[in-house]
């Protein structure tokens, strides 16, 4: 008989090793699935994990990894701080959308001006939009004791409807004969978020993600706020007795994660997406939750997790297009990664014992 025995303290070795084990298990199980679909499993795995980084067209795909990873990392870093403190912002997708709408609207209000002030203004509007959208669950929680998980999640659907009305109505490109979608910001120099160094994929969102990671790492390890966040998460009662202001913590964690999500939305709408459209929301806000946990809620871990997640997207698309794999197989493959991570995570908190043990 196999039993699980709780470890007195979580295993540091397993906590660090479990993402790697999960990736390895995903490759094995995914390979079996691809083989069952009649494709060469080694070729499929190579197409997903190797080719985008080292293959013939890596010069293009490496940049695309940054494009895909930057919003995930930017959002996940903010979310991780809240998660460490036990404050659960599940609605980053909504803050991402509202940030994009506010940023794009602030810019488009001055179309077709070529002033250099427009892009900075959009950045501020995007951050503010995400921040204010996150303040709704924060203030409701503080004033009425509502659950921030439910409120922030429900606000995603409100944000999606705002997005649809912006795309077909008040931000619609007046020159587009009825077609939904705003003007293309990428074609308007003053408002665009271009590639900063040609061929690298790096746009201002990548820069912002790097700054956010450094800032978060320093705050979590060296700053009093970081200590309070960790304390509130590990021992909420002790934190309260120790003089941690819970209300301030809720405002800080939700506000910061909302702001970063809003920024991610703004950089996306002004850069890779180019315009507010009905399909603008691409699920980054939800995927970032996975990235935050995959990265162990640690800023540096999140960088690695964001890049890995981006790799499964970019490589997965390549496999879908070049090997004729159905789109659903790629989604299943990504799902396996999370499944195995959660499964292997059990090993950091529990020890596997074989044989009969004493029931505690």
């Amino acid at each position, binding site marked *: 008989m196999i039993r699980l025995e709780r470890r007195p303290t979580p295993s540091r070795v397993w906590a660090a090793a479990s993402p790697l084990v999960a990736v390895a298990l995903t490759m094995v199980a995914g390979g079996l699935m691809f083989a069952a679909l009649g494709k060469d499993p080694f070729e499929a795995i190579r197409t997903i994990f190797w080719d985008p980084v080292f293959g*013939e*067209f890596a*010069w*293009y795909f490496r940049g*695309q990894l940054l*494009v895909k990873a930057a919003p995930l990392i930017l959002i996940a870093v903010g979310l991780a701080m809240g998660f460490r403190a036990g404050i659960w912002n599940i609605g980053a997708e909504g803050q991402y959308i509202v940030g994009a709408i506010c940023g794009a609207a602030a810019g488009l209000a001055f179309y077709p001006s070529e002033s250099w002030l427009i892009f900075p203004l959009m950045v501020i509007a995007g951050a503010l939009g995400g921040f204010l959208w996150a303040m709704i669950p924060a203030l409701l929680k503080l004033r009425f004791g509502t659950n921030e998980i439910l409120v922030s999640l429900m606000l995603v659907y409100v944000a999606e409807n705002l997005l*649809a009305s912006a795309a*077909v*109505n008040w931000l619609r490109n007046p020159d587009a*004969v*009825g*077609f*939904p*979608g705003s003007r*293309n910001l990428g074609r308007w120099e003053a408002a665009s978020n*271009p*590639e900063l160094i*040609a*061929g690298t994929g790096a746009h201002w969102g990548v820069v912002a993600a790097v700054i956010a990671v450094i800032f978060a790492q320093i705050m979590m390890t060296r700053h009093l706020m970081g200590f309070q966040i960790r304390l509130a998460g590990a021992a909420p009662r002790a934190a309260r007795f120790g003089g941690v202001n819970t209300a301030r913590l809720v405002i800080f964690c939700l506000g910061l994660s909302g702001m970063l999500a809003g920024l991610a939305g703004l950089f*996306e709408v002004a850069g*890779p*997406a*180019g*315009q507010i*459209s*009905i*399909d*603008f929301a*691409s699920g980054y806000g939800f995927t970032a939750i996975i990235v935050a946990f995959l990265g162990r809620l640690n800023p540096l871990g999140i960088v690695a997790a964001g890049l890995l997640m981006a790799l499964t997207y*970019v490589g997965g*698309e*390549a496999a*879908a*297009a*070049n090997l*004729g794999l*159905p*789109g*659903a197989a790629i989604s299943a493959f990504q799902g396996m990664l999370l499944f195995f991570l959660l499964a292997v995570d059990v090993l950091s908190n529990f020890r596997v014992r074989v044989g009969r043990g004493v029931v505690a």
Partner: protein
Amino acid sequence: MKLTTLLAGAMALGLSTPVLADAHDPVKVGFIYVGPIGDGGWTYQHDQGRLAVEAEYGDKVETVFQESVPEGADAERAITQMALGGADIIFTTSFGYGEATNAVAAKFPDVKFEHATGFMREYPNVSTYDARFYEGRAVTGTLAGYLTETNKIGYIGSFPIPEVIQGINASYLHAKKINPDVEMVVTWAYTWFDPAKEADAARAMIDQGVDVILQHTDSTAPQAAAQEANENGGRVFTFGQASDMAQFKPSPRVASIIDDWAPYYIERVGAVIDGTWEQQASWGGMPEGEVVIGEITDAVPAEAKAAAEEMIAAITAGEYHPFTGPINKQDGTPWLADGEVADDGTLAGMDFYVEGISGDIPN
């Protein structure tokens, strides 16, 4: 800067070699799909076109496709990936890929791009193609005029764009020719494919007394909603959209407008094989075999079926244009004089209802 670097990279890797450099290499044909092939509508029909290309040219072609590519930031990467993968011609099969298609076309001047239902041709290697769906609408509008007893026909619009407005106008004009009292009820779904929204729109119209539903969205949900109403004693008819939707035969689905892309895809891939491909804006219809009316079932009166078949024959032979005057605009101002035929430019930018349709086009 970005463009030149990418170009240099592409050339260094030998991607810019002409299509016919090696006659033994199969021509690689790529397709970007907006939905899953299994949607039974829009994407399914494009994939049928892809299979027809394979059947026609055999070893001379190799086809690749990618399903469910979102019409946002990811589209450009998906198209670039296909071009890097050595595709010689890429069909991007949804309106929302317009910007991305042109952006990628700039970086790959030797790859041909064909963008469905769009209007942007910013580089010489980009063509656009569309089908005259309004020709099919004229036929289904005629049938609707015969079928309606409540004198209310409904139209589930996707987006207020010219293609959809052409469809609404063509349906209404031809229903009215048969039944002068007919009234057109338009509901905007703001989606091409969302079964829940489409079903809601259909049910709301049925509640208002609409008994013939025409749809410009791709799911079978309105058909199912009509079937449900009929099982509860209703009398509602529908038409298949994009594909035949034959599972709802013989009623509520009494006919369908099928998009047949095979002739166009075979012609354009053939042009790449021969080296004769040139930029164009194609707008084929019934004469080219791109718009096909699916089986008209016996649920419609014989007289109606005969009238519909006569119209199909006339449009296919080029003898009849669905927008032939006299037609006034909604506000009563004359649009087409007696016997005058609408020009393609006006149709492609159509942003007005014809006289008799109430309500405004959302703006």
